[in-house]
């Protein structure tokens, strides 16, 4: 069909052709610039954090010539000693991992069990009352958990053991209680997202509630529940103040669970302010920080791996 009758409008100035200076165009562009710069800023911040902390954390190995193997496996920590300098961080690495695993051992069954109670047993009450309360508890600051640990749990352990109360056990209980609401709340969300019809199918076959939970619900929710626990562990691993307040911060490897111990975070918290910037001791603290950074990437990778197997 010919378009001759439209020849009056030359196509380059047609009202429907994009016009670089139009106010509409400028409005759109302005929005894009603002939004994209924020996105880029988020990337830059992440890269900057990773880069700065990595470079700083490697200083002790590069500048001070600390041996990586000795740092990771050595048992003695006396980086600013007059005589022999020792920089074995193994007791802290051990402390961090044991607090994390013991806390998870405590919080995972209790949290998942409570989540099952909330979603399968006392549904209305659980979801109307318990879940909001637990979500509020997620928000209780960790120093408060530390303070309670200090005033309740430490004396309790002191009475019932030979130690002074400040101990690995105290750290584990405080952190375990601290991550309990987190684990419960995420687990409950996971259990709720399981479609009702697969539960109904199981009950329809005459299965009891326990059989349904055990054979149908738990397997279906497993990856999400595992994510909940790993998220809790990540939080436990990185927790600083609550642990530092109750664990005793001894630099030696604990011999029993009621012994004093230390974690990566508690040593950083304790010593960062007392060391001279750039000194060996200070650089070693940044290397401990680098372990924390690496571990938070490891937790992300674990969570991604678990989610990739998620069925629900």
């Amino acid at each position: 069909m010919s378009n001759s009758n439209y020849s009056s409008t030359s196509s380059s100035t047609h009202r429907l052709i994009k016009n670089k200076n139009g106010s509409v165009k400028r409005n759109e562009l302005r929005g894009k610039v603002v939004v994209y710069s924020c996105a880029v800023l988020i990337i830059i911040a992440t890269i900057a954090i990773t880069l700065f902390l990595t470079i700083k954390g490697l200083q002790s190995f590069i500048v001070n010539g600390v041996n990586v193997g000795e740092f990771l496996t050595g048992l003695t920590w006396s980086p600013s000693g007059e005589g022999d300098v020792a920089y074995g961080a193994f007791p802290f690495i051990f402390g961090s991992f044991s607090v994390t695993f013991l806390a998870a051992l405590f919080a995972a069954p209790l949290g998942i069990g409570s989540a099952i109670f909330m979603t399968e047993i006392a549904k209305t009450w659980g979801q109307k009352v318990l879940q909001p309360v637990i979500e509020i508890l997620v928000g209780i600051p960790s120093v408060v958990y530390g303070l309670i640990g200090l005033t309740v749990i430490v004396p309790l352990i002191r009475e019932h053991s030979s130690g002074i109360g400040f101990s690995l056990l105290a750290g584990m209980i405080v952190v375990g209680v601290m991550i309990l609401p987190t684990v419960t709340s995420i687990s409950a969300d996971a259990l709720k997202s399981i479609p009702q019809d697969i539960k109904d199918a199981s009950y329809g076959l005459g299965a009891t509630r326990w059989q349904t939970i055990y054979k149908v619900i738990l397997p279906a929710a497993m990856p999400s529940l595992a994510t909940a626990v790993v998220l809790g562990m990540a939080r436990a691993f990185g927790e600083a103040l609550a642990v530092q307040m109750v664990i005793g911060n001894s630099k030696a490897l604990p011999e029993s669970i009621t012994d004093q111990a230390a974690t990566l975070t508690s040593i950083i918290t304790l010593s960062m302010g007392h060391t001279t910037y750039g000194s060996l001791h200070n650089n070693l603290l940044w290397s401990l920080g680098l372990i924390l950074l690496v571990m938070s990437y490891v937790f992300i990778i674990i969570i991604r791996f678990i989610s990739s197997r998620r069925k629900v």
Partner: protein
Amino acid sequence: MNRRISNNIATSVFILCAVVMIATLVYLLGYILTNGFAEIDWSFLSSNSSSFQEGGGIKNQLWNSFYILMMTMLFSVPLGVLGGIYLAEYSKPGKITNVIRTSVEVLSSLPSIVVGMFGLLVFVQYMGLGYSIIAGALALTVFNLPVIVRVTEDSIRSIPLKQKNASLALGITHWHTVKTVLVPAAFPGILTGVILSAGRVFGEAAALLFTAGLSTPNLNFTNWNPFESTSPLNPFRSAETLSVHIWKVNSQGIMPDVLEIANGSAAVLIIFVLIFNLSARIIGGVIFAKISGKK
């Protein structure tokens, strides 16, 4: 009847779990609130803290907590909302979007002490801000940003597509649609998330130890010139917040009433965190009802 027995045992175990958990948590809250409430009176809230005598208060700490909170929100809310808008509206599936998603995930899983160390390195030292309110607020921005990004993205994604189509089909630009249709519709969700995150920021301590510092100069509450060193508004002075105070009196305090001060401060802290939490829920609900126009 094995089935029935195991079912009953299992049910009892789950009930026990819930009871243990609730009892623990209620005990904790109750412990702090009952022990702490006794310490709270007007002079506790309105007097300066003391470093070795009895009877110190938390006036400056409380002020610092709110000041840092406000400044953190000032930085993190605009950035986070725009970042969330990017993810919900502008990102196309692909590498860059993945990088941003991963970034948000990394930021949100960084331990707060690590954020504090980054703040010490970059804000306090390289940027020369020293131990200061602004360095603390910047560190907490890193800590809070991913939370705001996520609530914004979720709130915008939950708006029905037909709202967006309605605006676009009227010949309105994408950006104007975002500003005038999507963000207003997402507002209740975003606001709820922001207030909730405020509770988290308010209670955070580890990220502040090395950025905002452990001490506060003697503040003069009659001097509101932000450029003077004793002004409460001076963003370049060091500032110990309430949460940091709780930690500090316990680990370094030598005054005789350490425990009373810590308990009192913890009770005040928890009360504010509860206020943030409850108001987030209430405000979210009210605005939601209003916006959806169901009277």
